[in-house]
């Protein structure tokens, strides 16, 4: 059975095509313009790249914040269900999944078969979200992809006291004026990020194995800081940003009429 999952978030859309239990292909695009059209374009481009005809896909499920705008999908599932299922596919031992995306983070608990048992989320506040990291990257003129590695070289990380991302920006400006190194600021930012991410995790209870998903999981500095804070190992998928789409594709294999959530 060939299924597809489309995860449409705030900043990017990911597509995964699954043939039984194997990933045939995946792609991630930045959203520009209307979300429904972006999702369709992303899906068509992914199929083109893979050389797969639309007709050979048995079922398509959408997930993510704008999942209901994906007209070509046969159904949709919440991000919580999708991330739990996707993380469980990467790491069958996963019992806690922490997803950190552009506009929020969520923590999920799942059972041995990848079924969601509990979750907590923050989508109200930008502290601890990917958007905050992007803002910091812009302020310090560091490419997003380099932030994590740079932060690991920090000898004396700064301590950011603000909860609010807006106030934290002022603290960072003050550090820049003071001549604090970019590395030390980045490390301080990561430590501030993970304190908020861990707080969401603690609301569901953090039980190993812990998997970190979402685009922010690509930042090795954040991953390392979270490992240190939780005093626990964290598993990060090879492509953390496609976990939601992968989960949607996995959920699409289940019989139609299965409970929607």
């Amino acid at each position, binding site marked *: 059975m060939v299924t597809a999952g489309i995860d449409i978030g705030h900043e990017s859309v990911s597509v995964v095509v699954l043939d039984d239990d194997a990933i045939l292909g995946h792609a991630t695009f930045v959203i520009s313009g209307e979300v429904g059209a972006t999702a369709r374009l992303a899906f068509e481009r992914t199929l083109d790249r893979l050389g797969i005809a639309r007709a050979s896909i048995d079922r398509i499920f959408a997930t993510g914040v704008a999942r209901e705008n994906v007209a070509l999908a046969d159904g949709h599932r919440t991000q919580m269900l999708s991330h739990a299922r996707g993380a469980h596919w990467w790491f069958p031992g996963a019992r806690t999944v922490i997803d950190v995306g552009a506009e929020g983070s969520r923590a999920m608990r799942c059972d041995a078969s990848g079924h969601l048992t509990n979750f907590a989320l923050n989508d109200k506040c*930008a502290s601890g979200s990917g958007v905050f990291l992007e803002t910091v990257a812009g302020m310090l003129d560091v490419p997003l992809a380099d932030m994590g590695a740079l932060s690991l070289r920090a000898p004396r990380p700064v301590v950011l006291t603000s909860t*609010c991302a807006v*106030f934290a920006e*002022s603290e960072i400006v003050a550090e820049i004026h003071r001549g604090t190194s970019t590395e030390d600021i980045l490390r301080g930012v990561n430590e501030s990020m993970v304190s908020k991410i861990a707080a969401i995790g603690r609301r569901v209870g953090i039980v190993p194995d812990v998997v970190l998903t979402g685009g922010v999981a690509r930042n090795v500095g954040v991953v390392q800081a979270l490992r240190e804070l939780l005093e626990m190992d964290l598993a990060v998928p090879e492509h953390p940003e496609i976990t939601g789409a992968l989960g949607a594709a996995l959920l699409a294999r289940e019989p139609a009429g299965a409970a929607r959530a």
Partner: protein
Amino acid sequence: MIVCGIDVGARTAKAVVLADGEIAAHSVIRTGPQSAAAAVAAFEAAMATTSLRREDVEFTVATGYGRVVVPFAQRNVTEIACHARGSHHFFPEVRTILDMGGQDCKAIRCDETGKVTNFLMNDKCAAGTGRSLEVMASLLQVRLEDVGPLSLEANDGLAKISNTCVVFAKSEVLALARQGVPTRDILGGLCDGVADRVKRLLRGVGVEEDFVISGGISKNVGVVRRIEQKLGVTSHICFEPQIVGAVGAALFAQAFLERKASTGP
């Protein structure tokens, strides 16, 4: 008796000089990255408007977020206490005070002597603080002082802004602007949102009819009107609402000096 109050806030530093209980001079300046330098600059700006000399000032009390770094202050007092004291000086009948600053918002209850009996504060989140309006004004390319008047012209109805978080609301505001929603309607929605946040804080301490608003946002007529409408009260605002905390600090300085004089050296 000449005393001074300095209020070093997150965005501005204020100085007030009291001569025998009357305001002899005051100043409001932007705070740069150095709080201590801002305190000195605010003091000098106030002194420059008088014929007083620096050594005439017998006692200085500092307050505000940067109160511990004011180099020439003998004491420091919390901004909650100073705002209550300062508001009581301007409006002795007042029992509820709302101070809306650049980076926080405080709802304070006081007794008939201006002593704090209860307070609630938001200094964790930029939503509902002056900072949110600064961010949005610059995003929409509107001067900060025009935000209030423009927001009251929102005759096509307020734009609905669903995000509380300033960071997320920025994207929402940009999207509205791109859709062609008039700036005044967006500003109307933003000022309404600030008033809603403030209302929740005030409900927590209880609002009485005699109600003072101080701090920079009290200069924003769009926010003030909406708070009044939502609470069904009329607010008292003094001639320079940004100096209320510094006035309170100066009054504490006066009290310290009087106590010292009565107990002897």
